[in-house]
């Protein structure tokens, strides 16, 4: 195999190799190769090997193409990575791994919030319950690639649903938060309902798909509602710096998590 630093040297018309171009080409190939490896993690090994080999060959052709500029190589590689993230996190490609990562972040966030935000002990306890539920959901996705394991998924959904609903009911809403506090409260309750629907759907395999989608859609819509509430609340009533940031992080987590959860139908459950 040719050393990738030799790329382009045979195509240069201006006589002599261009070290600058060779270094850029090698760096791009190396960086994008690692990105490809990261973004295809969890895919069945033989299939993954084929994908990586074909892309390596493609990048080689592109970098060695005398008609292509380095800018176009970089733009195409960057766009390809964006596409990979889209297909694997939000698009139609089934992969439980990104879902598991989002669940783990939400779970750790919920538990951390219980111990750091100075909320009442009861709410903190439900936060921990929610966190444990989400971590169980993450475990369900990490056990096998492209599959959520029912044995972990179901208890995780139940715990997360109970914890979230209790959190929604007990969450204090400051009077000067205007409607936004209620947006967040209602959104949280909606997320809990959606999680419960998904849990029930898993208990009834026949209606499983339809209700998984319905549950996912409710979670998606509610989380958007909650995100609007969290952002609005942050703007009108965030006297404490950390509260402002945690609200914004809740909003981001909601949108990201909801986008992923809405794709539940593409992920095999077993």
């Amino acid at each position, binding site marked *: 195999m*040719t050393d990738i630093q030799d790329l382009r040297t045979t195509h240069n018309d201006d006589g002599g190799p261009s070290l600058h171009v060779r270094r850029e080409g090698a760096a791009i190939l190396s960086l994008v190769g690692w990105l490809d490896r990261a973004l295809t993690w969890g895919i069945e090994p033989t299939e993954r090997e084929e994908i990586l*080999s*074909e892309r390596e*060959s*493609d990048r080689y052709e592109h970098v060695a193409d005398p008609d292509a500029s380095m800018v176009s190589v970089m*733009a*195409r590689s960057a766009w390809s990575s964006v*596409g990979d993230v889209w*297909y694997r996190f939000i698009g139609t490609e089934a992969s439980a791994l990104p879902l598991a990562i989002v669940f783990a972040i939400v779970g750790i966030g919920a538990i951390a919030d219980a111990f750091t935000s100075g909320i009442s002990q009861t709410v903190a306890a439900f936060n921990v319950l929610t966190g444990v539920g989400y971590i169980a959901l993450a475990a369900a996705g990490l056990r096998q690639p492209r599959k959520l394991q029912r044995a972990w998924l179901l208890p995780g959904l139940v715990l997360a649903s109970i914890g979230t609903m209790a959190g929604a009911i007990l969450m204090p809403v400051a009077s000067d938060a205007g409607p936004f506090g209620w947006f967040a409260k209602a959104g949280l309750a909606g997320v809990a309902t959606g999680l419960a629907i998904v849990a029930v759907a898993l208990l009834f395999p026949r209606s499983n798909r339809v209700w998984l989608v319905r549950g996912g859609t409710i979670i998606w819509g509610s989380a958007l509602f909650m995100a609007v509430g969290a952002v609005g609340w942050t703007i009108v009533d965030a006297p404490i710096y950390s509260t402002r940031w945690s609200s914004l992080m809740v909003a981001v987590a909601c949108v990201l998590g909801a986008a992923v959860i809405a794709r539940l139908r593409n992920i095999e459950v077993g």
Partner: protein
Amino acid sequence: MRRRGDTELVTNEVKLLLAAISMTSSGDSEFHGYSLAKELARLEGIQTPMAQSTLYRALRRLEERGALQSRWESIEESQADGRDAPPRRYYMITAAGVAAAREAVARSEEASRASAWQTWVPSFEGR
């Protein structure tokens, strides 16, 4: 792009098949992914070929539905003519692929005619 009923080709798949037909009619019965993406970019008059993430997913789907066939070149082939590059995966369009592309183009033309007709009717009635 949403796939209707898992049967119709999506836009990118149709474009790739048309690029494959173009390459085949120019004498390249086999082509690799990058050359196909480059041909498509040429046909569309754009600079940057389709991104790998989209390209190879579409090619995989086309192969699964029998519109394309593929083979990996051997190490010897990949090192022929001093190329000494990573092995390429070569694709060939099948008769089913040509038929699928024709059907998609016909359907698209039909949809354009229908759309033109719908635009024309209100303007006629409005006179």
